């Protein structure tokens, strides 16, 4: 790391302020819809749609896809898909207002972009797999689950962060 005095380029919100707003949003979401936020569910719908378009019979015969394929219903017509579209719009808005929009690979100066992207892919695959097994990701299972004191939410949260700390040492070069 450069030794000279340097400030973080990005000026983000105070995390407590962000957390407070996010908490209010979770309350609002539960108050309006009776369920919490989510993210990976939208990607699951995307995958189901793609597989169903490419190989319809295969998708219908698979026990997992067929759970989400209903007669006469488009799997993308899903609450979570619309929410995910909103997430992208909202993040774009925030990025645009603060001038954070640019096409780049963010990585530690100790590693190459290539290495970063390979690890991002591996991480994505693992996260996607884990989110399906645990029936939800950090936002859907852990965050929304904790808001209603769901046992699954706490277990998932502890498992994610506990494992994260256990394996952090092996990935340190990527981040520090």
């Amino acid at each position, binding site marked *: 790391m450069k030794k000279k005095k340097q400030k973080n380029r990005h000026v983000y919100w105070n995390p*407590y302020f962000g957390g407070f707003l996010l908490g209010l949003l979770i309350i609002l979401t539960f108050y309006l819809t009776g*369920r919490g936020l*989510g*993210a*990976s*569910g939208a990607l*699951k719908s995307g995958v189901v749609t793609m597989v169903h378009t490419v190989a319809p019979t295969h998708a219908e015969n698979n026990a997992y896809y067929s759970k*989400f394929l209903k007669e006469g219903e488009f799997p993308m017509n*899903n609450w*979570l898909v619309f929410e995910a579209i909103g997430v992208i719009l909202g993040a774009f808005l925030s990025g645009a207002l603060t001038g954070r929009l640019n096409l780049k690979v963010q990585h530690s100066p100790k590693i190459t972009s290539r290495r970063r992207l390979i690890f991002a892919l591996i991480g994505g695959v693992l996260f996607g797999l884990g*989110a399906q097994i645990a*029936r*939800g*990701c950090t*936002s*859907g*299972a852990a965050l*929304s689950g904790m808001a209603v004191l769901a046992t699954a939410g706490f277990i998932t949260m502890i498992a994610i962060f506990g494992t994260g700390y256990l394996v952090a040492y092996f990935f340190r070069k990527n981040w520090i």
Partner: protein
Amino acid sequence: MSKRYKSKKILVKRRYQILAVILLILAGGLVLLPKYTKSEGISPELFVKNALSSERFINTDLLADRIINNDPSVLLIDTRSEKEFKEFALTNAINIPLKNLLDEDYIDYIDQDVYDVIFYSNDNFYANQAWMIGNRMGFKNLHVLKGGLNEWFNTIINPKYPEETMPKEAFELYSTRKAAGMYFGIGTIDPTMKTGTKKETISKPAAPKKVITKPKKKKRVPEGGC
């Protein structure tokens, strides 16, 4: 570190401490607030909504149609006394006198969401009371036979021959009702011949009791989570 920076840091720290205390007070408030038990069953607003809903009553024509078509989702419940039930009852009806409505033996018949439960009595009275009690408990798919058995006799068993001046629909309805009445075993009476139908002559059809295996009640509908 400059002195000013340091004092600012202390100020920020103080602010966080205040926020933390507020959060703790709010959380502690939940523990300390006096507890009360929420009233069980559905809210008064929903109850009024259900009471005014058109779904509440089912008319005799529709019921006759559903019985004739062997609609498996119909569950008829006779709310009159056992004695009256033995004298006459609708096909496949189950006798649950109003006073026994919430007995353990019977509760499974009304606390379920598989069948359309239809209460009936001689008129609307007992059936309506049963409906209200069930609705207040939050049970689903409860209905009342509009007009009860009296209406049943007047419309299905012994329909009135329409006046000559009445519209065509009235005659159609009459012939449907007559056919329905025939199905229930009493349609041979031609209303043009003057005959007073006697209720006592109606033989009670052998009513095999419906056996309901109560499905496991789901507390919450599972949905795809995240």
